[in-house]
């Protein structure tokens, strides 16, 4: 099964189970969780069911494209269901089976792994999903996001498509993965990995980055205070990515690190509150059907 077939299969599966198929957010994020479709939509009382592919950037994981298992830019397939449905764990397993993995032939397990994101002020309770000892998914019930308690609780399932594809295709190096029948992952992305690795690890101008971090932070605050949490959140993402670049360049000392993480967290918390306030002002428009259900 090629990478694009994996995406198409998962899209089909989750669409059949009531998820809208979203598209990736068009900014640098460190994980699918940071895209507004997860971070913001998991806040507040409105129901939300979505699945999407999100390219993610982790500058510190850059390896010039030479490490068979590690990439500075890679993909996550992200599913969010809120409120978390009773049968979600079964769906998670069925979705893996939909990829052609016969559960009886393998050892699929849920292994405790609670999740926490200090930069997002978010935490959840959950598992790694193992396939014959290999982590292929992260399965988390959000408890807190942006410093706010999640009510109702959203459940998140994050797949590592490269890992799953390497397993399905019996390949030891990401470069050998078939993206489609016509083209390999390496042909598509190796040069990009190489160049970005040089940038992330050597070339990036740390003075400039330190400066724009301050500017992005100020802009996020200004825009949020002006009553526009959505564009403000874009600047939170820019701060987070700038921080990651500085970190990858080794330009942040241990003590500075804690301080900067806290600054990003404060921004995220501010935007989260402003976002919920705005949704409330709008009357939580997506609540319509769900509240009818509750009144039955």
């Amino acid at each position, binding site marked *: 099964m090629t990478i694009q077939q994996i995406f198409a299969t998962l899209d089909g599966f989750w669409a059949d189970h009531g998820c809208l198929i979203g598209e990736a957010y068009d900014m640098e994020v460190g994980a699918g969780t940071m895209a507004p479709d997860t971070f913001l939509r998991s806040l507040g009382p409105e129901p939300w069911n979505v699945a999407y592919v999100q390219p993610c950037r982790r500058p510190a994981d850059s390896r010039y494209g030479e490490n068979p298992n590690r990439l500075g830019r890679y993909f996550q397939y992200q599913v969010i269901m809120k409120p978390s449905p009773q049968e979600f764990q079964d769906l998670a397993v069925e979705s893996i089976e939909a990829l052609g993995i016969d559960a*009886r032939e393998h050892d699929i397990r*849920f292994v405790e792994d609670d999740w926490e994101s200090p930069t997002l002020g978010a935490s959840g309770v959950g598992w790694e999903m193992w396939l014959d000892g290999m982590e292929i998914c992260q399965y988390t019930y959000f408890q807190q996001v942006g410093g706010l308690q999640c*009510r109702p609780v959203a459940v998140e399932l994050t797949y590592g498509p490269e890992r799953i594809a390497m397993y399905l295709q019996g390949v030891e190096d990401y470069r050998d993965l078939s993206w489609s029948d016509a083209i390999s992952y390496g042909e598509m992305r190796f040069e990009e990995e190489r160049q970005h690795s040089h940038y992330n690890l050597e070339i990036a101008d740390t003075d400039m980055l330190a400066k724009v971090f301050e500017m992005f932070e100020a802009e996020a605050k200004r825009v949020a205070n002006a009553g526009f949490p959505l564009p403000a959140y874009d600047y939170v993402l820019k701060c987070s990515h700038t921080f990651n670049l500085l970190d990858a360049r080794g330009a942040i000392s241990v003590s500075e690190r804690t301080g900067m993480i806290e600054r990003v967290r404060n921004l995220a918390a501010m935007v989260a509150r402003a976002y919920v306030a705005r949704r409330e002002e709008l009357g939580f428009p997506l609540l319509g059907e769900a509240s009818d259900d509750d009144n039955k």
Partner: protein
Amino acid sequence: MAESTADLLFEIGVEEIPAPAVLPALSQLENLLTEGLAAARLTHGEISTWGTPRRLAIMVGGVQLRQEDLEEEIKGPPAAAAFDDEGKPTKAAEGFAAGKGLTVDDLEVRETEKGSYVFAQVTQQGQEAIEVLPEILDNAVSSLNFPKTMRWGSLEFRFARPIRWLLVLLGSNVVPMEVADLQSDRLTWGHRFLSDGPVEIAEPSEYLSKLEDAYVIADHRRRQEMIEEGAAKVAEEAGGRARLDEDLVEEVNFMVEYPTPLVGHFDSRYLQLPDDVIVTVMSGHQRYFAVENSDGSLMPLFIAIRNGDDHGLETVREGNERVIEPRLADAEFYLTEDMRTPLEDRIEDLQRVTYIEGLGSLYDKTERLVELVNWLCGQIAAVEDQHQTAATRAAELAKCDLNTNMIGDTKLAKLQGRVGAEYARRSGEPEEVALAIGEQYRPQSAADTPPVTRPGRIVAVCDRIDHLAACFRIGLRPTGSADPHALRRAAQGIVRIIIEAGWHVDLPELIDFALDNLPEVEHEDAVPPEKVAEQIHEFVLARLDTEMERCGVSYDLTRAVLNTECPDLLDAYHRAIALRDIRQRDPEAFETVVIAAERTANICRQAKAEEDLALAPDALVDDHAVALYEAYEAAREAVSDALAAEEADYEATWNALAGMCDTIDTFFDEVMVMAEDEAVRANRLALLAEIDDLFLRLLDVQEIVIEGEG
């Protein structure tokens, strides 16, 4: 005749609960049900609990199907208020009777100690168990304590993990109840992949066998046997022996419902990695068991416990082999990179690593450690030059592994010290230096053993006293149960090592040296050194207290010893142990001596504190006083001899003190200490004060609690 009891089966089905949470939850469940049933007047038989990652189950045998009726006598108003002068019932009496569902005629008047009162006899009808159980079970579920709980869906209910089904049977009947929006039923679920659909349980006794048919071994004791025996067997077939780490067996046991061990291979070139690293890579993340040769060396094999039967076992094996490979490759990469720089060339690098904010770098810490080691070596009689050389070298290199790639990997970070030891060996350092580096963080817990080599013990004590001095100096004392810098463990380590090593070390001096050794501290929470010294001393003695308790020294005896001058931990410890034995051997004799010494202490302590008492032996006129003085002189000499020996003889000390006992008693019986003549009185008090001081070289008798005293 209908049965009067039935078995109760209660199963909570969950999404995979964390392995360490299962056993504690089961034992709580057993306690909660035992209490709940007793409170509900329901007798029962034996209780069994079973746990897997997906279920917490409890079976209570022979639960009484109906509560006993409860006969109660309820006291009402005083008779005088219940009946008027004419003997007619008042409103009070009517109200009381009505409240109990009775009429006034049912009330009785009886005499009590407080006068005459009205009583009602009430029979509370026993309820059916099936009506009472839901509340008991519901209460048990919501009373379970977990280290961490969560919410899910739209519920406010909290549990360790989402609850997915509820099986509650009393005999063949479902006990109707609701928890977390789920209705109880007679359905359970078998293995997630090897069994189709729910499994119906007709009655509790068939629970285990029905589940086994559905590929779930619910009894965790049996699963553990299957894991241990199975792992041993597959290891043997592969020509080796399974290393069955107890904690790992328990963890794995609660990660599977149907265990099937399998052996996987890894490339034998990884065997050049340190053993600790290989084992940690396998056990830490993947929960594999190591396999060793008969000589204890590792084989290039691992044992994984598959959750399921042997269907597709080959695929599962290959998958697991593919997972461990890159992890070992990472470790190999770290090793190759790390070996480019010999350990000693890493010392300078430590300047770039902060130890604790405001207390310099690890380089500074290393320098302090070397100073401390040299000082401590000078304090300990048994330390020879070779030990000092090794300990100093180990101190220089102690922190160098913290800056390696290997320890930089969070999954391997707990190997600090052990990786340093291996790297020291590979950098050509002497074995005793390597051992000392490897032992510096031991004991890691109460169950862990302290270092055994002399240089290891020295480095370990110095590392900890520096840590205590540094943290206390900037106000980082543990508060309540929070101890983020592991200071209690550090102090406990010092106590255990010093006692085990048999070192006579002056603790206040050690603390002072460690504090002087610190850099200039500019910190907003800094505590002045004099105050810190006292705090640390107290803190360490509190751990000595714990150690004594562990050795069965009673609390009052510990206080009695610690309330005397005891700069030397080992001395205090030995005294306490000796006194424990003396007291155990003959509690009455012990008490007799304590009582005599207490009389002495009680009468002279105040004077001792207020005046300068100088004993003039020649001025003692009374025969009894003279006799006491002579007894004291003899005892003093004997005590001095006994304590002066290289290893103080506390038995002899005690015997010498006890020898004065009769004379003390006679003295108190025959002599008025508080004589009218001021000089006579002062001289008598001075004699008693000397005797008290002599006792204080062993213990403070005023701390001893004597049965029946109060």
